């Protein structure tokens, strides 16, 4: 790094125009990414407050803080805020929006106005959900199982369902925008197999957005209609089938897990080769595994329903398919680990997040095998084992990827460097705090503590107190980056074009980039993550034998 000679560019996307209108009516994908950054951070904050209250409440067996009604609302609203309004849009709408055009050498997304529209749709959907939270709350669980949600619940279910229904269009439009952009707007020389793996991950995610989201939209609409007009889709008293709701719900909501984790995997696939300074191991396998996860992910939904009374044959088929979808994830982990081999490894903050991601995703993924196992699911289904498992995937995986990605591209987004030492401390704090919070929950689950319990038998208290103690460390790990990243926007050192250095196109333009992204359309004549043939990076020529011919047999 040579910060001494770096200067901020005179004009860039942040200062090219001024005023609130220039932001609220912008069609610049980079500014829209920042609008999303602010709004998903807001929902993360809300969901985080609910989570904090949950953990404090569970300090004692009889419940420490709130009434049962309030507790049920807390975990429901925590789930709805975090899943639909933070995790699903986080990486695609923030980092994806910012990076997809930059990484493929385009000036913007294919439909800049639709991109802005999707943010407004997100805000509208979010307003309905906040209205539900503020006027009676929501106590159905984020899964909205019928007939509890459609008949029995006394909380503000309908506005929440409408909010999530509206928000779905935001996902669909973002997905369409990405697919069209990646197909039609790649720079000369940017062939499909020269695309950064982050782009492959965004592409796979977009496919799920487009194919899956309409299903959840219509499902929640049917539940809302049943609630409002007693139409009898799911209520057995009116001739409906409550299990049908679960099939429709999970047909989207299981692939939605891959919406959360695939983009994070894309982030990790960018960071690891950068800080190991060598090509990623098995590029085509990592790219293909993203597509495989997106496709197979649509055929595993009923593994959430092994104990609803579904037929034994269905259970066998869905268990087998669930093991099948685990293989492409395993392939990624093996390839990332192999990328470290004979690298030149630096432990900058994004790399710490990536290594942390591998560790936590590994535990999350392996415990998924336990839940896919029919004979174990009859014991651990709907216990804290499940809670621990999906937090390892969604928080340990997706959020670590997101925060790691924010750090990695922060110099590009703001033109400034964050304080490195503090950032490393925060990364380690997050990793330790996360494990202390959620590992005890695996044990609680195997001991038999069901999820969504506002009180519990006294023998479960020790593990619950441990979990709450861990959560306080975890909270610190989230607050630190919010503080120093904000601080660095004004006071951070100037980053320069390519501080790491990394090989992607986004690093060939000034930081922050100009509104048009590139002064002239870039031409790509190098393979992805190829440090050897990039004299412009100012690195040494690698020594030692080339063990495999450059890119072709992998």
């Amino acid at each position, binding site marked *: 790094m040579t910060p001494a000679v770096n200067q901020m560019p005179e004009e860039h996307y942040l200062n090219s125009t001024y005023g609130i209108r220039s932001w609220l009516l912008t069609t610049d994908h980079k500014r829209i990414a920042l609008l999303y950054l602010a709004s998903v951070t807001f929902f993360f904050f809300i969901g985080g407050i609910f989570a904090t209250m949950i953990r404090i409440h569970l300090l004692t067996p009889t419940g420490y803080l709130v009434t049962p009604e309030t507790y049920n609302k807390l975990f429901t609203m925590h789930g709805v805020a975090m899943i639909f309004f933070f995790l699903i849009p986080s990486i695609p709408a923030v980092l994806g929006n910012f990076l997809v055009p930059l990484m493929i050498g385009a000036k913007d997304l294919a439909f800049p106005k639709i991109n802005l529209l999707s943010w407004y749709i997100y805000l509208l959907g979010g307003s309905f959900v906040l209205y539900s939270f503020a006027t009676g709350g929501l106590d159905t669980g984020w899964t909205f199982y019928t007939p509890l949600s459609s008949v029995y619940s006394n909380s503000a279910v309908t506005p929440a369902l409408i909010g999530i229904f509206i928000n779905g269009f935001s996902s669909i439009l973002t997905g369409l925008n990405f697919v069209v952009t990646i197909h039609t707007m790649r720079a000369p020389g940017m062939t499909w197999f020269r695309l950064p793996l982050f782009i492959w991950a965004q592409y796979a995610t977009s496919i799920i957005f487009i194919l899956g989201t309409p299903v959840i939209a219509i499902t929640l609409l049917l539940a809302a209609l049943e609630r409002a007009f007693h139409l009898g889709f799911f209520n*057995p008293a009116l001739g409906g089938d409550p299990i049908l709701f679960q099939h429709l719900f999970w047909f989207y909501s299981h692939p939605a897990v891959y919406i959360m984790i695939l983009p994070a995997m894309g982030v990790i696939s960018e960071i690891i080769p950068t800080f190991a300074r060598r090509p990623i191991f098995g590029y085509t396998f990592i790219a293909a595994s993203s597509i495989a996860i997106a496709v197979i992910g649509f055929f595993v939904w009923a593994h959430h329903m092994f104990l609803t009374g579904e037929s034994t044959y269905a259970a066998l088929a869905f268990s087998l398919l669930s093991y099948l979808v685990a293989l492409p994830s395993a392939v990624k982990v093996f390839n990332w680990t192999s990328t*470290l081999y004979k690298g030149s490894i630096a432990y900058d903050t994004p790399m710490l997040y990536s290594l942390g991601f591998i560790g936590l995703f590994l535990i999350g993924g392996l415990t998924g095998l336990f839940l896919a196992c029919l004979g174990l699911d009859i014991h651990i289904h709907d216990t804290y084992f499940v809670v621990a498992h999906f937090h390892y995937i969604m928080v340990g995986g997706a959020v670590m990827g997101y925060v790691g990605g924010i750090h990695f591209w922060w110099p590009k987004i703001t033109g400034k460097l964050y304080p490195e030492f503090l950032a490393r401390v925060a990364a380690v704090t997050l990793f330790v705090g996360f494990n202390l919070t959620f590992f005890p929950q695996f044990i609680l689950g195997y001991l038999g503590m069901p999820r969504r319990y506002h009180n519990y038998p006294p023998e479960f208290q020790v593990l619950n107190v441990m979990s709450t103690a861990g959560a306080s460390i975890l909270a610190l790990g989230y607050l630190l980056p919010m503080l120093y990243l904000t601080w660095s926007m004004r006071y951070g050192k100037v980053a320069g074009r390519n501080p790491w250095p990394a090989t992607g196109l986004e690093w060939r333009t000034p930081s922050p980039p100009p509104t048009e992204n590139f002064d002239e359309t870039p031409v790509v004549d190098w393979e992805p993550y190829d440090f050897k043939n990039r004299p412009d990076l100012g690195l040494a020529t690698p020594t030692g034998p080339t063990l495999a011919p450059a890119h072709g047999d992998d």
Partner: protein
Amino acid sequence: MQAQLPFSPEQASNFAPSVDTLMAFLILVSLFFAVAITAAIVIFFFKFRRKSEHEVGVPIHGDLRLETLWIVIPGFLALAMFGWGAVVYVDFRHPPPDTLDIYVIGKQWMWKVQQPNGRREINELHVPTDRDVKLILASEDVIHDFYVPAFRVKMDVVPGHYNTMWFRPTKAGRYHFFCSQYCGTNHAVMGGWVTVMDPSDYAAWLSGSSGAESPLVAGEKLFTEKACVTCHISNGTGRAPSLNGVYGGTVRLADGSTVTADESYIRESILVPSAKIVAGYQPLMPAFQGQLTEEQILSLTAYIKSLQSQPIPATGAGVVTTGKK
């Protein structure tokens, strides 16, 4: 039987040792991969540290043999996990013959239990050791789930469906049961205790019953009160088929298909008779949807099940082949 895993509940049913052994297998496989990958990361972390600012790594792009290896080996391990898990699950989903049948009804936020002789319990369940017990589960409102950690089994309790679950208690004692499907405000207190007793103690406990009607007797009364008996005449001369021998047998329907007369079929035929019309009969029966409580439906079902051993008339039988053993 094998040693108990640390951090696991007591083993009190036939399923507990098999679930725990399966768990041990998955933990071993997972530990192997977790340790191997973590070790690789830690070793690479130190061995391949960047030594100078401009150093670059060795450009290795991949290796087809390695990729094949780490797809095929985990693939076989996954198949082993799937197969072993399937064996336990299929066993759990198929109750053996001659079970002790206990009716369990979930409603917001309590469990009502009825023993075969009619003895009722609330949030308590008494079962004998070394006897195959089958719970027939019904819900009066939302979806619940009956879960006994010490038995390692659970099953959803779904309104409009019957689900069944079975287990063989192996160890006397008192164990928690929970509702493990979120069901609204007091979900967390919708639980109770399973008391597993020696068979003689169980028999003594059962005979200390308050003299409540057994489901069978209650069902027989209902069969007359609700006028079922006026059409379903046992000698087959009524406007509806005789129900003798129906339970467990095969019934031919008006559209030519056949169906096995299990608890769910009987339930549906009471609540929505038009759903499946027996061949040769008119759709005359009124629907009882919303007319009967879950307990009444269970009692009627118990009575119809008891007709399994009655002589089947030559004509007017509802059943084509019986399920009698």
